[in-house]
């Protein structure tokens, strides 16, 4: 029972969504909308789940007097402050907006912008024309990089044209083939999950 029910749920839900899309049966469309709304609601619960897992782990750090207990304390404090501000005072409350504007925004963008530094040092250290193919990557990269910046026109009027051509012809061919190939792969995996042949997502392995 505990094994069969989840597989049946996956199969019925998946096949229903597929049938609804390809067939014009009036009742199906409405049913599909309802099911999607259910899935959205379950996903909303799941959103809290990850956060609660995180809280539980840091709470354990504190009770066990782990070496990172102070950091865990900071994490929990800022989490609870945000939750209290958002749930009890509303998402338009000043405290909530302050947290969003002055903690989440600057930190999020600073963390992401750090990738720019790493990218610069990786480009300097690792982008070597060691082989013909590596050289192809490097040269295309430089042409696209310079050609797409306004300075490309100043360096040579042909540079932006080359960048555009590289994007629209060879890149198109490469990306399209990757897309077709991965579409087949994605359909294969999903069909195996829907038909119950592959059960790894349930932690059961296949049988």
């Amino acid at each position, binding site marked *: 029972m505990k094994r069969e029910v989840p597989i049946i749920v996956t199969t019925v839900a998946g096949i229903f969504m597929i049938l609804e899309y390809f067939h014009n049966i009036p009742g199906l469309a409405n049913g599909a*909308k309802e099911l*999607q*709304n259910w*899935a*959205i609601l379950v*996903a*909303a619960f*799941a*959103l809290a789940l990850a956060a609660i897992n995180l809280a539980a782990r840091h709470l354990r750090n504190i009770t066990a007097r782990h070496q990172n207990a102070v950091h865990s304390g900071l994490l929990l404090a800022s989490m609870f402050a945000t939750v209290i501000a958002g749930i009890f005072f509303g*998402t*338009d409350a000043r405290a909530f*907006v302050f947290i*969003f504007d002055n903690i*989440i*925004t600057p930190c*999020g*963008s600073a*963390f*992401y*912008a750090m990738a*720019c*530094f790493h990218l*610069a*040092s990786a*480009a*300097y*250290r690792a*982008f*070597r*024309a*060691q082989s013909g193919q590596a050289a192809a990557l*490097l040269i295309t990269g*430089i042409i696209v*990089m*310079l050609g*797409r*910046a*306004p*300075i490309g*026109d*100043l360096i040579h009027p042909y540079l*932006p044209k080359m960048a*555009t051509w590289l*994007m*629209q012809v060879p*890149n*198109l061919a490469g*990306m*399209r083939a990757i*897309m077709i190939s991965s579409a087949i792969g994605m359909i294969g995996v999903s069909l195996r999950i829907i038909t119950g042949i592959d059960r790894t997502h349930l932690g059961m392995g296949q049988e």
Partner: protein
Amino acid sequence: MDVLMKLGDIDKRVLYVLLVLVLLIPMVRPIGIRISISHWTTKAYEQLSRLEPGDTVICDFGYNVDGAPDVEPIAKAIFRDLFDRNIKIITVSLNAQGPMIAEKLLLPYEESGKVYGTDFCNLGFMAGGETALAAYARDLKRTFPRDWRGNTTSTLPILQGITGAPDTKAWIFFTDSSAEAWVRQVGDLDVPMIGAVITVAAPQAEPFVHSGQLSGLLTGLRSAAEYEIVTNRPGGAVAAMDAQSLGHILITIFIVFGNISYFVKRSKELAGREGVQ
């Protein structure tokens, strides 16, 4: 030869500091390098310029604050253009941070007289990712029973007569990841779709532009600058382009340095080996 080899051994912290300086200086003292308009932007602009006053468009805010510096300038440029032409905007988000971002961009227009619920509305966030996207593209009000400000969506004037995407005139999504999910779920609905993606995702979106699945593609800060120029409202993105150019030059120089040093080292090693033989 030693000097050439040392070109590959510059401390990366020096590189970091140089990078910041090279970006900062042209922002303080702009050079004013001319910005040409790419065909991508022209195509997207032509599509949007077909909209008439009173038309409604959906703007999906699919980016987070971390990717905002690259994507947000496009959203700003498009909002300015559309609101000036009295086009109505519905904002939606499948990213938790989306509604706060949208609210902040909408605020100046509300202060200057645009009416919430009539000229624009913010439907807020919905969990569920692609499932939510498929659901709201077909039925906005059922997926979003309430908007971000707590109003019942069925009472909003802007949503009267609108069930799903095909009842609007254009669908614009802003994202800091790939365009795939939007193309998948909205692609076969009868509405022109414009993608505004983070620059990194541009090459991957190219097949969708070529096949016509996307009616327009705008990518990152550069496209925002171009859009500001074609709509005659130069702003922040145009101002940042000089820095962008110099940043690219610096990275190119460092790649060249790295390679020179690599080849010098390699030719020395080869020469050394021949010497031993």
